[in-house]
């Protein structure tokens, strides 16, 4: 295991000098007797690189390739050019899925970002208790499946405590997950419940980078909390908020688990989100080519959103430090 380590050069005690030397030219290949750690590095990088090439890079390329084929897993993939894409553009269920997904993302991200921001600011300005932060994070420890099932029960039309309360208030019971209008907002809010704490802690970390004396100074000047939020918190948090938004929007577009266990895409395609439709096409109807084409479309949408958000929010500065 100590192939390359037996002959470390007498390196200068200051790292900087070594750094400069390493930049001045490629390490001499082959000999291995001096500064280059080639063989050792190959050993260290090998497992991760293997995983990267085989399970990330290769499937990415293959996913794009499959989108131009007809493929049912059993017979070899057959090149069909743009057929899958033509079909996709003419597929009303695809457009419905895309629309439903966008509706979900707008509600999910809108509510989640506002709530997370509120929680983060409360944690920052009211108390910095680690216990409270821990409590806020607990739903994140549940899987989406667990969160989905729990809320399925809480919101059950017949016996769920949510509807019992609504009923006791003299209102009509709401079939939250069985109604075409309510299903998507309900699923969006279930996922807010699970993810809002994590998002809040990300924002909280960003808030901690804002120096306390700014608030002190503003308070001495008689500024209200509301004013401080808009004049100090928001402008300084913007870069962090932008990165968090990009991350959560990308995650939100991939919604699948909650739909799968609560509504299975129904009623009448009302919650047939894109990822669920893709899954059904591949594993229900064995149209892996078509499913891949829709995946590519989703990838394109996500990339476009990332670039757009990045531009709009000028999130060039992402490091908290």
């Amino acid at each position: 295991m100590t192939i390359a380590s037996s002959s470390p050069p007498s390196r200068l005690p200051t790292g900087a000098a070594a750094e400069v030397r390493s930049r001045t030219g490629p390490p001499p290949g082959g000999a291995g007797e001096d500064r280059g750690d080639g063989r050792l590095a190959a050993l260290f990088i090998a497992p991760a690189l293997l995983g990267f090439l085989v399970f990330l890079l290769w499937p990415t390329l293959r996913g794009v390739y499959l989108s131009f084929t007809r493929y049912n897993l059993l017979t070899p993939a057959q090149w069909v050019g743009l057929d899958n894409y033509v079909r996709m553009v003419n597929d009303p269920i695809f457009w419905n899925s895309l629309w439903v997904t966008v509706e979900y993302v707008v509600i999910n991200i809108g509510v989640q970002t506002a709530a997370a921001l509120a929680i983060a600011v409360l944690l920052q300005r009211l108390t910095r208790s680690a216990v409270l932060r821990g409590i806020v994070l607990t739903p994140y420890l549940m899987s989406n499946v667990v969160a989905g099932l729990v809320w399925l029960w809480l919101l059950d039309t017949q016996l769920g405590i949510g509807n019992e309360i609504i009923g006791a208030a003299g209102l009509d019971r709401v079939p939250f997950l069985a109604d075409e209008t309510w299903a998507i907002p309900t699923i969006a809010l279930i996922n807010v419940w699970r993810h809002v704490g994590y998002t809040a802690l990300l924002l909280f970390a960003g808030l901690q980078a804002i120096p306390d004396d700014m608030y002190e100074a503003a308070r001495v000047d008689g500024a209200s909390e509301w004013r401080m939020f808009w004049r100090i918190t928001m402008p300084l948090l913007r870069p962090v908020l932008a990165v968090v938004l990009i991350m959560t929007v990308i995650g939100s577009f991939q919604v699948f688990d909650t739909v799968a266990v609560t509504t299975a895409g129904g009623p009448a395609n009302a919650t047939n989100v894109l990822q669920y439709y893709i899954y059904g096409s591949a594993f229900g109807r064995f149209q892996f080519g078509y499913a891949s084409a829709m995946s590519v479309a989703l990838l394109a949408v996500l990339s476009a959103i990332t670039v757009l958000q990045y531009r709009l929010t000028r999130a060039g500065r992402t490091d908290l430090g």
Partner: protein
Amino acid sequence: MTAVTTTTPARVRPARRAFPFGRAVAWTVMGLIVLVTLLPFYWILRTALSSNAGLGADPTDPLPVGLTLGGFERALGLQSAEEAIAQGGAGGGLDFWRYLLNSVLVSTLITGCQIFFSAMAAYAFARLRWRGRDAVFGLFLAGMMVPAIFTLLPNFVLVKQLHLVDTLLGIALPTMFMTPFAVFFLRQFFLNIPREVEEAALLDGAGKVRIFFRVVLPMASTPLVTLGVLTYITSWNDYFWPLMVSYSDSSRVLTVALAIFRAQTPATGVDWSGLMAATLIAALPMLVLFACFARRIVSSIGFTGIK
């Protein structure tokens, strides 16, 4: 942690006159948030300990109705089919002990390997000098841009061709070697370790492999543990990928089993008691894990989350 609140209350008081009211409102909101966060957990427990008949008779009682462990017995496959059906279960015979074991195996395999291999790669990127280092690292960074979900379908095709469908290894394989994020995160940490520490060891004649294991890894124990716990939680909670890969008991993990439990239970009278008991079994290990490392995780989430 509470240093902020001690700042000169006397001098600031005039500006704060209206504040106590605002504070009261803020605390109320915070209290509501805590309530909404935690009540569902209590309701899981309350339901799991109730009988299905009791749940139907009294849906609003804050305490378990008809206190029984029947729900847990059904989830763990301890009841006979007749008994289960009599108590409102499906009698499908799911064995959550087995799924629990599968989940533990898969999550442990993924976490252990992924963290170790990622740490090795991160060290190579941070400290070793080799040709093409920056190019390869750039490639890894670009990999972070591909949503994991895009690789699932092609990865399934690959795992099928490797004849690893319906095996625990097949579930673990795609995330076992690395995630770009883990490599990136650990590289950042390794870069911040003072070079002098390693150089001192080098001068003492230690090899770089030895330095990695004896100096660098121990110094990085905090981020390694944090990353490890988060990875464990993520793989434990994963549903989509195991759903694709596992078909039978031999590779079924808890999330998939839960969804099957839900699908099996009669649509007319759902076995809520059994379902919530199963849910609790699936969630409890993560709650315990979190309880052990809560402080560390909570305080380091900003850094692991961004980028």
